[in-house]
């Protein structure tokens, strides 16, 4: 876990956030009010809290106060690929984007398939501070898809979930074992749902765009087949599965049927899937090359509908930094992935402005639900909880530039785009970590 209780109670900072629109799905709360932070915890939450002497007041009129945002899908690249990102830069990007906690995927070098790597990440997270870090460990040793990683030892070292993210688990038998074994240790199982036989060699969504570009496509069915398998296995084992980065209408339909059958399946999508389409790669723009690929307009609309209906319960960024070494190359040679920590809030606010989701649903998608699915604290503003808070100015206009971004690499197709809305204050365990 990010910090010990002891460290938090040492923090004697007291401050009052005044006049914010308070959005707390855990209490069904959407109302104007004040929130008092004391000793690292939320001391009080009310329509009005009298200001005591010595309490710093933060005027927040016009801003939205949410339980600290939790990004359950980021690649921090440490250990082993520090030229792309490290905990220092990645966590700075996280808090600048309004995230108080991130779950980091295990496809590092070496992959996080041993308690040593998990402990290394948590030790580094403690050194760096800022946001809380929840390591996601590998499903299979070396992410090779053959033998289970030591879930018990990984859990003990501090992992909260398992995933072979970056690579699908091709062997359905192994995925079944993973769900069965995860049950023993209460670990969240996150599936990078992709049928490798269908996606092999693919670069972009399969369809008119792949045809025009003359590159091999990744059909939507590569995702649908895998999502269907995970739903079936979750039903067989009777243990929940969480589907990462849903990008297709076909997958949404399967999620709909799973929900109708009452199956324990949750899902996330990333802002780029509800914002962009495959058109973004038409000029061989490697910054828009991502896996799963940006899909068709129909898919994009289906993802928005799924967010509105609650078929997809989480927005996670799949923040995937790559350096120019991996991105400034010919299209087929370019790595998949884009950064996302610092653009998630304004892009999600677009959904609110367009009437797709309510502000309260936004808080659910970015905080309460991911915290619950990972089984970690957070996602609530109930007094007594650790003071993990995100204050958003929904109308702050800014332009995405390399200078504005804190991630070590700037690989985002949103460079140059005007954004509306931004995290203006990020508090972790009662400590203001953003702005610095």
């Amino acid at each position: 876990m990010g910090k010990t209780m002891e460290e938090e109670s040492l923090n004697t900072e007291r401050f009052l956030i005044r006049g914010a629109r308070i959005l707390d799905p855990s209490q069904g709360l959407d109302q104007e009010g004040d929130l008092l932070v004391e000793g690292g915890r939320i001391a009080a939450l009310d329509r009005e809290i009298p200001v005591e002497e010595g309490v710093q007041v933060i005027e927040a009129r016009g801003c939205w106060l949410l339980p600290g945002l939790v990004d359950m899908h980021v690649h921090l690249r440490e250990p082993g690929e520090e030229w792309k990102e490290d905990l220092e830069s990645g966590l700075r990007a996280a808090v600048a984007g309004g995230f108080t906690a991130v779950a980091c995927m295990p496809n590092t070098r070496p992959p996080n398939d041993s308690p040593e790597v998990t402990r290394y990440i948590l030790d580094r997270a403690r050194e760096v501070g800022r946001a809380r870090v929840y390591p996601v460990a590998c499903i299979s040793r070396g992410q090779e898809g053959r033998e289970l990683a030591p879930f018990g030892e990984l859990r003990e070292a501090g992992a909260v979930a398992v995933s072979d993210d970056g690579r699908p688990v091709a062997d359905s038998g192994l995925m079944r074992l993973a769900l069965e074994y995860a049950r023993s240790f209460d670990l969240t199982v996150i599936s990078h749902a992709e049928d490798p036989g269908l996606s092999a060699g693919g670069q972009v969504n399969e369809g008119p765009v792949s045809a025009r570009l003359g590159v091999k496509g990744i059909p939507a069915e590569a995702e649908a087949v895998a999502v269907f398998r995970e739903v079936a296995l979750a039903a067989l084992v009777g243990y929940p599965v969480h589907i990462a980065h849903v990008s297709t209408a076909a997958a949404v339909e399967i999620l709909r049927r799973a929900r109708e059958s009452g199956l324990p399946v949750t899902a996330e999508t990333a802002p780029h899937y509800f914002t962009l389409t495959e058109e973004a790669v038409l000029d061989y723009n490697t910054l828009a090359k991502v896996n799963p690929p940006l899909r068709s307009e129909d898919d994009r609309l289906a993802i928005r509908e799924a967010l509105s209906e609650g078929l997809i319960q989480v927005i996670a960024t799949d923040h995937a930094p790559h350096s120019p070494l991996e991105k400034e190359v010919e299209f087929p040679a370019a790595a998949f992935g884009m950064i996302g920590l610092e653009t998630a809030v304004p892009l999600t606010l677009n959904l609110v402005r367009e009437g797709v989701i309510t502000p309260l649903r936004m808080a659910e998608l970015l905080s309460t639900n991911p915290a619950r699915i990972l089984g970690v604290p957070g996602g609530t503003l109930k007094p007594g909880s650790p003071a993990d808070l995100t204050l958003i100015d929904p109308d702050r206009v800014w332009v995405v530039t390399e200078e504005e971004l804190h991630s070590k690499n700037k690989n985002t197709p949103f460079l140059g785009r005007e954004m509306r809305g931004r995290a203006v204050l990020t508090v972790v365990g009662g400590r203001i970590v953003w702005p610095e």
Partner: protein
Amino acid sequence: MGIEFPHRHLLEIGPLSREDIEVILRTAANLKEILRRPIPKVPTLRGKVVANLFFEPSTRTRLSFERAAKVLSAEVLNFSARGSSLEKGENLLDTVRNLMAMGPDLFVIRHPASGAPHFVARHVRIPVINAGDGFHEHPTQALLDLLTVWERKGPDLRGLKVAIIGDIRHSRVAHSDILIFRKMGAEVYVSGPGTLLPPEREALGARVCLRVEEAVEGAGVVMALRVQKERHGRPLFPSWHEYARFFGLNRRVLAQAAEGALLMHPGPINWGIELAPELEDFPGQVILEQVENGVAVRMALLLLLLKAGEA
């Protein structure tokens, strides 16, 4: 002895009534005295021939049956072979027909294929005892386990909690034990790694616990199973180390059990894996009693099945 035993074979626990089980155990308890004599031999089954057919390596069970037969003065034919599960059908029947020519009076069969003893029983006119078939059952082990518990806890098992820890899904010992202890009124709890646990609906009426401590808590009998890391070439848990750490029994876990709890194991034991070495002198450890009771139970079954045929 006024013996009433209405079964021709012993293939599985299911068809046995409580009374049948009591007959077997009482007979075994009586015969046990013979084993302690200076010359443990009686002429009861003189002239009878017991054929041991072992298609899986097993020293202990085979020796136990062999000794049971010899104490009762029966002759023993030992046949051992590796039976690949693919070839089982034809080879098994050929083997059995060949052995029939040698005039056995009873077959004891261990086979990697579930149902192999049932298959043989349909093709022969003599009694068949299942000495362990595939993932299915090991009824003589269950009977000797029950006898061991009886001797220590008395015959009324109502309210007794029995915890079985290990590979429940693939263990014929677990299957037979769950059935027999439930039949006798005990409550059975099972635990082990999630990959080795059956879903509740397939647990034969046992309660499935994800945490070993939960299964062991308040148990009067704790049984560890021998674990194998692989089944059909696929590892079912990450490492021996992790198994021992999270699913092995040790003093700390057994401290949750009831006062005077028995610790049992069907053998052979992987010390340091399913049982911590510190448990060798655990006060309720009855593993050697299980071995002795194994001979007694098998004597009883030979007697009951062979004598009943004569009556």
